[in-house]
């Protein structure tokens, strides 16, 4: 859990997560576009995000694609929010709706 908080405690890394949230499965080159960061810096930030399990990398041919993995963030939320069953049930009912495919 420390690794998740450390990874999230940096604006550049949150920006990378935002970009993957907007478009999942990007290469390093795609992620670097329009960012005020060197390629090396992005590589380093991605390694920290991967280490915290917030980003998952998958090879496709020669390319390495990066995917946002929000599961650890949900685990953090559950630690403090999940105590209250009412909220929990709300989340679960949302999940049910979500899995049933009725959009919002």
């Amino acid at each position, binding site marked *: *859990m420390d*690794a*998740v908080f450390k990874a999230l405690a940096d604006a550049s890394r949150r920006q990378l997560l935002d970009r993957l949230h907007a478009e*999942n*499965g990007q290469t390093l080159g795609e992620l670097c576009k329009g960012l005020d960061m060197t390629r090396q810096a992005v590589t380093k930030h991605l390694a920290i995000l991967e280490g*915290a*399990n917030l980003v*998952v990398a*998958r090879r496709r041919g020669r390319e390495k694609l990066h*995917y946002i*993995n*929000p*599961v*650890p*963030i*949900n*685990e953090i939320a*559950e*630690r*403090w929010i*999940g*105590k209250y*069953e009412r909220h*929990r049930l709300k*989340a*679960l*009912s*949302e*999940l*049910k*709706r*979500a*899995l*049933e*495919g*009725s*959009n*919002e």
Partner: protein
Amino acid sequence: MSRPIFIYVTYINSTPGRVWQAMTDPAFTRKYWVNHRNASDWKVGSEWRHEDYDDASLVDIVGQVVESSPPSHLVLTWASPKDAKDPDKVSRVSFDIEACGDGVRLTVTHSELEPDSPMLSGISRGWPLVLSSLKTLLETGEPLPGTLVKKAKQWS
């Protein structure tokens, strides 16, 4: 436009066999998956259904078992019952369960999703909830966690 893919990974302090059981055994799934069961014999080519535990006429998701190698690998097709015959609306979910250190790395890859579809929006909210609930259930024995996590060592 390529079809969107989502990859979800969670590390669970458990064994591959228990994780497999937790995904396929109704007594398990009802506890962390909104009182639902995943009904199938889990053989390649068989149908599977994600349905209400108490009322099997309420089916949320249907599909076929594409690959099945207990307890490490399972691939399913995935669609709303009303969309099951429309190839554009049938997506694919792979579960990979690997031993990792003292625990298990569970990877859920949901691919071939229809861009901007209600299903895409639904699964991207649903999987993080289901997977963290599964992790909590297997690690603590309780689907509704308290504020204190019993395990001293957190995986993530």
